[in-house]
């Protein structure tokens, strides 16, 4: 029994990481319907930023986290301005290929500048293990869980309650109409990228700290997993991304705990496909029928 509880904790902890990444994915998708392939790589940039400021400038954890969020927000805005904005009225698949190009550029540019070596992330917070009965959880696992839930609520508030959030929703429904009523589309999209990329930056520092290993390709696999999570939950929806992340974390854990570790990813994809067949727009997504 205690193993089951422990595995549940493991699953939630893994899920919170996917959820954190999926949030940024889903925000960008929600507003411009772009699969931002480079999202995972912005997360990598965040991790590397954290690595350098903690090592070189001796930042403590929170300043490192916040500066990484700012740095990544800037990076996201610049990438959007240079690579995605010129393609806003082009076929979506062209923008997707550009996003893949940006992803390659970030991965290989970092690899060129800093080598492909795996580095150990500086331990800005000492690991503490808490034992609750037979279940063990570390302070960093808790931190990630709490941060991802707080960020999710914060995001939901921004989108539902602020003026910028309203603008974001308006742009996502109908960009042309939004422009007609005086919403600055460029600024709204920039803001969305800033927000989504800041989340990735936070994830980079948190996950770097948690696993203690970073490398230029670290964003590739989690990026794809986060995308899967976002789709599973219903892409474009904040709660959907979080839900998708936790579902995938729990599935992976369950498959491994049952002893089918070699088929972990296969099961995740199989579940994804089955869920999509029943709910073609994800768990929380609404399937909008085209008006005839």
């Amino acid at each position: 029994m205690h193993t089951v509880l422990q595995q549940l904790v493991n699953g939630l902890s893994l899920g919170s990481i996917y959820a954190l990444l999926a949030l940024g994915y889903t925000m960008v998708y929600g507003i411009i319907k772009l699969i931002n392939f480079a999202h995972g790589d912005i997360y990598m940039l965040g991790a590397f930023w954290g690595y350098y400021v903690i090592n070189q400038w001796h930042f403590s954890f929170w300043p490192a986290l916040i500066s990484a969020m700012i740095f990544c927000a800037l990076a996201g805005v610049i990438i959007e301005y240079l690579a995605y904005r010129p393609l806003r009225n082009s076929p979506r698949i062209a923008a997707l290929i550009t996003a893949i190009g940006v992803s390659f550029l970030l991965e290989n540019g970092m690899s060129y500048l800093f080598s492909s070596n795996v580095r150990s992330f500086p331990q800005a917070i000492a690991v503490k293990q808490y034992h609750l009965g037979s279940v063990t959880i570390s302070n960093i696992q808790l931190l990630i869980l709490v941060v991802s839930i707080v960020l999710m609520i914060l995001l939901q508030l921004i989108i539902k309650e602020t003026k910028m959030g309203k603008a974001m929703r308006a742009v996502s429904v109908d960009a042309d109409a939004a422009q007609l009523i005086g919403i600055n589309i460029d600024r709204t999209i920039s803001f969305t990228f800033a927000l989504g990329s800041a989340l990735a930056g936070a994830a980079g520092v948190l996950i770097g700290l948690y696993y203690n290993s970073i490398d230029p390709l670290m964003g590739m696999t989690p990026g794809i997993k986060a995308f899967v999570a976002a789709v599973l939950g219903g892409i474009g929806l904040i709660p959907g991304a979080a839900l998708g992340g936790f579902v995938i974390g729990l599935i992976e854990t369950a498959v491994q705990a049952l002893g089918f570790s070699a088929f972990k990813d296969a099961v995740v994809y199989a579940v994804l496909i089955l869920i999509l067949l029943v709910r073609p727009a994800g768990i929380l997504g609404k399937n909008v029928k085209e008006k005839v």
Partner: protein
Amino acid sequence: MRGKKLATVLGTVMLAGSLLLAGCSSSATNGGNKQSGNTIKIGGNFELSGAAAAYGQAMQRGTELAVSQINKDGGVKVNGKKLKLQLVQKDNKSDNSQVASVASNLATQSKVVASVGPITSGADLAALPNYTKAKVPLITPGGTQDSLTVQKNGKVQPYMFRSCFEDSYQGKALAKYVYSNMKLKRVAILADKSTDYAQGLTKAFKKEFKGQVVQVQYYQAGDKDFNTLLTKLKGKKFDALFVPGYYSEAGLIVKQARQMGITQPIVGADGFADPKLVQIAGKKNASNIYYTTHFDSKATNNAKATAYMKAYKAKYNEQAGTFDALAYDATYMIKDAIENEKSADSTKIATGLANLKNFKGVTGTITMDKKHNPQKPVIIAKVENGEEVQATSVK
């Protein structure tokens, strides 16, 4: 009807054309690449980008260091002349099609007389046909798969060599060491399912180990979270955990296992033998770790290794690891082969590599066996608190 006719006509014309021309084009005699001028060109078929870039770049650094040292020391002696080595390196982006393309580029365009790399067995297999066609020997610092150097009919691959251990050699040595030296009877295995390296090791270990293999679990290269698998293992009774895989994941496994309270010895192969293992795991966690290594980093018994590590640190400002050292040795093995055969023609180098005896490298004293596998002692290192405390040579 016409469409069918078209296809038939097309096919026949092409067939006729290819037969006609194939006869001519294949008649060019091929005796391998000859060395000419005052330089000896060796190729570098490196994974400089893509998934295996971290290992490929290490290979690049080791090779470059070796080439620059050889040239600084006067070059390669051939028939009384001192020839400089020239490294022609190309990136294969960790993609097997590109590996094959780079191989033919190096062999036929650059006319190299030998090649270092690629680093993984799969890539070596993709590169080999083109090198074999051009009769250029290839020496890999990381292709450990047993059957790599053997043809389908059981004969040795004439142009395939390695400076690293083959999987079964290491796997067997580890199995013996765990059972006989450490006297541990129950082993759990946590293996990388995505590389043939880890699979080969697992297979060899299981075959040789006389005790009981309690459980085998798998992960994929690139995984970061092993808590679930470790939680599962924690409930089982075992004396040692064998982790066939590379340091990038193994470091995380060590870290997460120790944090979880798994205190049993963790055993690995040469994929562990990199300073980054301890960096990722954390010094405190890196205790009770055993792994095979090519050089004893304490280096009490190997002046070459000490010198190498110093030179590497001086040039790249980081600690040397396994792949760079193996690539460094591979380059020097080519040099030795040239000097022994007194010729830098590619076919002669292949002969020289096959006959290599008592080559003193930084990863040990190497003698090539009949199957082009280096025979050298396996050293098993023990790590406590991030420091290597003991090194045992086993056979």
